[in-house]
């Protein structure tokens, strides 16, 4: 059986339609996606706005302590970096940097510890300069707003009623501590009073990976061809080689089992190739769970093999006819998995919301979901649920194949 298995795998991978549509086509589509979609990710990325701050006595004073800390926070390298801040000694140097275009804005701090920004009229007319200035302005506006709210809060306290002049930041902080409001002061000092970005997903969501996951679903369904060919080569009523094999010393059931195993292995490695290409060459994010991704590939390969067996067992249809049916199913299911661009993605989402059962019975969508679950969910429960759906699909398809094959006679005169 080992030799038969090896020859069947060899036969399958050398078939032109398998080579083109199952192995090369997904790689070509993935490359195409990479070329088309890489600009989308670029457009979603925000570079830190470049600005300078005049590090004079006002900036370094006790009054501006909160501002300095805030500035450090928003200019810290990382995903949340908003500003790229450079310090200059004097206002003249700051203005020079702005006028030369090296910085979008020059930030100064007044005696009260409140910031203000100076911009170049020339830069303000340019789109990029305008965006960077807007970012700087938004940061400063938010700071001033929080400062004002805190000041109002402290001044409304009974212990602050005796104060004659508007308190500075340092006075506010000292006052809050002495009044036993250290907790509130700490809160002001910390991030707690600012809006925080919290990711509910394991990894940062990308607008493009769904296309690649849909492509994996598409590739899984395109692989139906493999088991259609394997079944056809093992059945007496579908091919001459099948008839020849049927009269041999190995039972048809065992030969079909070998054909299915060979199909599964072939499909698995075809999908593995597509996965590896996307993961390591194109850099598509699969959540870093490569081991579990193998499990997803195996489930997809099993489903594909079973569906191919069911289609391959349909009587009185030629092999090209069956391949046509498989292609039709693949293209239709891939539409609702969101493969064909933004409208297709929106359609898939609408169908998912209004008719969840349609997603449940869509093999391409389930195959894509397996990778989606793996990438984005902390819990593996959704992933294994999807694998179960794929396994149930495979079982149903195998049963259909068995029923169709049963009692099919090889008849000719």
């Amino acid at each position, binding site marked *: 059986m080992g030799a038969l298995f090896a020859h069947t795998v060899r036969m*399958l991978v050398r078939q032109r339609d398998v080579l083109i549509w199952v192995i090369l086509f997904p790689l070509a589509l993935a490359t195409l996606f990479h070329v088309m979609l890489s600009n989308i990710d670029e457009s979603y990325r925000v570079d830190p706005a470049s600005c300078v701050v005049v590090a004079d006595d006002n900036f370094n004073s006790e009054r501006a302590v909160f501002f300095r800390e805030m500035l450090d926070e928003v200019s810290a390298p990382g995903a949340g970096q908003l500003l790229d801040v450079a310090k200059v000694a004097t206002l003249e140097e700051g203005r020079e940097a702005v006028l030369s275009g090296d910085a979008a804005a020059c930030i100064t701090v007044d005696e009260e510890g409140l910031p203000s920004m100076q911009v170049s009229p020339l830069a303000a007319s340019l789109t990029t300069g305008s965006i960077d200035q807007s970012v700087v302005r938004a940061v400063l506006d938010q700071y001033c707003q929080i400062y004002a709210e805190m000041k109002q809060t402290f001044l409304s306290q009974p212990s602050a009623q005796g104060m004659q002049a508007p308190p500075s930041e340092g006075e506010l902080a000292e006052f809050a501590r002495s009044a036993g409001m250290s907790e509130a002061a700490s809160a002001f000092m910390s991030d707690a009073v600012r809006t925080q970005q919290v990711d509910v997903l394991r990894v940062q969501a990308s607008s493009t990976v769904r296309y690649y996951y849909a492509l994996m679903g598409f590739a899984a369904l395109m692989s139906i061809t493999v088991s259609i060919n394997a079944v056809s080569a093992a059945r007496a009523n579908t091919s001459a080689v099948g008839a*020849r094999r*049927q*009269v041999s010393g190995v039972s048809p059931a065992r030969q079909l089992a070998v054909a299915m195993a060979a199909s599964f292995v072939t499909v698995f490695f075809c999908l593995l190739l597509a996965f590896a290409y996307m993961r390591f060459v194109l850099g598509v994010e699969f959540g870093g769970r490569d081991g579990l991704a193998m499990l997803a590939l195996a489930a997809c390969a099993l489903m594909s093999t079973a569906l191919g067996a069911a289609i391959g067992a349909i009587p009185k249809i030629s092999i090209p006819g069956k391949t046509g049916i498989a292609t039709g199913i693949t293209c239709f299911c891939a539409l609702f998995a969101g493969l064909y661009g933004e409208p297709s993605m929106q359609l898939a989402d609408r169908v998912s919301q209004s008719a969840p059962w349609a997603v449940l019975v869509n093999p391409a969508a389930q195959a894509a979901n397996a990778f989606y679950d793996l990438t984005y969910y902390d819990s593996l429960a959704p992933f294994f649920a999807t694998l179960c759906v794929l396994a149930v699909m495979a079982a149903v398809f195998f049963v259909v194949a068995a029923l169709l094959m049963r009692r099919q006679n090889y008849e000719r005169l």
Partner: protein
Amino acid sequence: MKENESANSVVSVRSLVKRYGDILALDHFNLEIGKGEIFGLLGPNGCGKTTAINCMLQLLAYDKGDIELFGEAMKPTRYDLKRRIGVVPQQVAVFDELTVFENIDCFCALYVSDKTRRRELVEEAIEFVGLEDYRKMRPKKLSGGLLRRLNIACGIAHKPELIFFDEPTVAVDPQSRNAILDGIVRLRDEGATVVYTSHYMEEVEQICSRIMIMDGGKILALGTADELKRGIAVGEKIVIELPGAVEARGCAAAQTVGALPHVLSCEFANGELHAACEASERNLLDVLGALKSSRVAVGRVYSEPPTLNDVFLEITGRELRD
């Protein structure tokens, strides 16, 4: 059938009936083939040859009858018996994606699991059919004749005791055809029993020890080629060229010859006189004498024994290849 013959039978088919709807493909078909025979199944296309073979191989379910191979009842699950059988189908049945060596190895693997033994058998089969120079080539690059040889190698590599050849020489050039026929005789010499179907009577006559002529699912005649020929009235066929003879004169000559006592029939066509005669030592002399007395100029003269086509013609009233 005598008892000792039955005991020596490799193939035994009794009262086999097979229907395709209203069509009776095999009508109480009987067959006994002894060990070491090359048995020819001869008949026009659609006469039931392939159906008979497919029933014997249990590829087809049949309505009635018993089939025994190697003295044991043949059933679809008798894989032990199937392992002793080789099949060379009418249609070339090989994998286009595998090389010559891989194809033979793949089909041999259905019978022989030991890799070393299989390798020997595959090499022997390649040598047997003369494909040594093509072992790494894929079928699509082979000519029709070489493809047929590969088809044969795939069916015989496991050294079966009983081999079914279903019209293996269809669309094959004469050189490859002779090579195939020589190979079949060699297989017989090595101990195999061969069932050979064809509608080429010359081939069957050339290699088969016994011949069954079939038509409409029925057995028309059975025996050696000589026995079959002896069983018909025609014993000799004489062809005489009548140079320059017009239609009327040729027909008159045919009438004259046809009136001779040993001549069964005589026709004039395409400037030739075709006379079918009973077996006799004086046929040629009598015919030439009759033409001489009628003052008919005679060109070249041929005399040949009857063929299997004559047997078929006499039994059915039509040509084998009609």
